């Protein structure tokens, strides 16, 4: 039954993003073309200095950046709203009359929405990265930044792999698993808040919002007691990139930072474990409310 639900819910993903995703890529292509042809910026040169059109070119270059930022912002908002709406309207609004009278279990309904939200998020992130690449790839400012980033990632992961064993790709894969799990956890947190709001007779949206904030407090305490591995990594990559940009990497500095991370695998799996437990609690609460306390009035 889950497969059938997914078929139905993925139609909504297609409908929602059929314009957004191609539009983001098309805008990126237009922004790049306007940079290359109108500004005549040579990708090997700096966008800004290499532009031959003077002020007009500079304005265009900034406009292209603005388009990029706009597209990324719009896409993250649309993806988040999609995830919320598909749960709220799809299960607790008018459409819930259809979904809850199908011969399926509430947990299958939740899973279907969750998988769709996660897949839509992953594709949105990939499209966003592609849009960045389409606009900026090859231009010197971006490539300088890119090489610095690539370099520091490589250094970081090589060090991590050397210290903790298992190879660079295993570390990267573990990090991706952690990111995907964090996405699921975040959506389940939202679903739980919406389901709790549904328990009230009135002001359901306000109550959902309140529930979200109330859940958030102990959550940040749990995660806050030890610094998460992702902020650690972002911090490290930032430091190394900055050191690189300032002219050469101070090996001892980066080694010291990485050394403080301890065993990478242990750290990342502890964090995945915490996220799994939290996700399971959120899922069980949401499932309980839809199964035992459903009130579609």
């Amino acid at each position, binding site marked *: 039954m889950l497969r059938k639900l997914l078929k*139905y819910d993925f*139609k*909504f993903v297609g409908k929602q993003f059929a314009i957004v995703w191609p539009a983001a890529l098309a805008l990126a292509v237009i922004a790049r073309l306007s940079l290359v042809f109108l500004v005549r910026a040579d990708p090997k040169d700096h966008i800004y200095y290499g532009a031959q059109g003077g002020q007009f070119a500079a304005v265009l270059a900034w406009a292209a950046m603005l388009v990029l930022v706009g597209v990324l912002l719009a896409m993250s908002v649309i993806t988040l709203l999609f995830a919320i709406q598909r749960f709220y309207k799809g299960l607790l609004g*008018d459409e819930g009359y*259809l979904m809850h*009278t199908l011969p399926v279990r509430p947990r299958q309904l939740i899973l279907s929405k969750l998988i769709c939200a996660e897949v839509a998020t992953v594709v949105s992130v990939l499209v966003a990265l592609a849009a960045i690449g389409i606009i900026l790839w090859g231009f010197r400012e971006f490539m300088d930044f890119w090489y610095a980033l690539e370099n520091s990632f490589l250094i970081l992961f090589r060090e991590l792999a050397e210290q903790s064993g298992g190879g660079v790709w295993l570390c990267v894969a573990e990090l991706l698993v952690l990111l995907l799990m964090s996405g699921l956890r975040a959506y389940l947190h939202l679903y739980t808040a919406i389901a709790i709001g549904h328990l009230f007779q009135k002001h359901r949206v306000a109550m959902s919002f309140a529930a979200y904030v109330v859940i958030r407090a102990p959550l940040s305490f749990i995660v806050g007691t030890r610094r998460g591995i992702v902020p650690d990594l972002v911090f490290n990559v930032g430091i190394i990139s900055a050191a690189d940009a300032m002219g050469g990497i101070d090996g001892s500095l980066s080694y010291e930072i990485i050394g403080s991370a301890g065993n990478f695998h242990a750290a990342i799996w502890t964090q995945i474990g915490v996220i799994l437990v939290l996700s399971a609690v959120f899922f069980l609460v949401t499932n309980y409310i839809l199964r035992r306390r459903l009130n579609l*009035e």
Partner: protein
Amino acid sequence: MDENIVTCAGLVKAYGPKRALAGVDLELGRGKIVGLLGPNGSGKTTLIKLLCGLLRPTAGTVLVDGKPVGPETKALVSYLPDRMYFADWMKAEDLLKLFADFYADFDWHKCTAMCDRLGVGPKDRIKTMSKGTKEKLQLALVMSRKAQLYLLDEPIAGVDPAARDFILNTIINNYNEAGTVVISTHLIGDIEQVLDEAVFLKEGQVVLHDAVDAIREREGKSVDALFRETFRTAAWEGGTI
């Protein structure tokens, strides 16, 4: 298979302090057309939603085919809600596929034939249909199932007399004769001739449940007349208090 398709015992549903159902005991047999009759706010919609699992009871039990409401009973129930529950951008064909996917008792050919008669093509978008056509399409989907229990919530409220005839004929000509049809309404005159049994709901309680013929014989009047008598509220005729 349980003898009764519907069994409610001491069924209570409260919305905060207000009780929409205040202890309903009701048993409905198979192969009947039952009118669930009562004025607005008497608890008709609440009872139907409890039977199809959109609400959970505050107290008491509700069984369909002898089983508590869940995926198993939902497979037996064909529910027509008092609102549109489809996404606007879908095509008629999408809805048919959805019903065919989830309900083993859905008759694809019957539904497409009904859609043809309504002038609804498979590629037509829901968004472009009039309110009346959407309602008829929803009815066609619901009546194309060979269900054990049809729960039709106010199918003839707010439609013109011609549409009313269409809806009633669709119901009468297409329901599974081994199954039971529950029609909730306050427009009794229009459906009285098709009913086998009548259930009167008043302020969340069943005040009468009997065969329509038995009611007519006993009371010496139509169910419609009895309904007006039971639910009459004396109008204030002016003067000083």
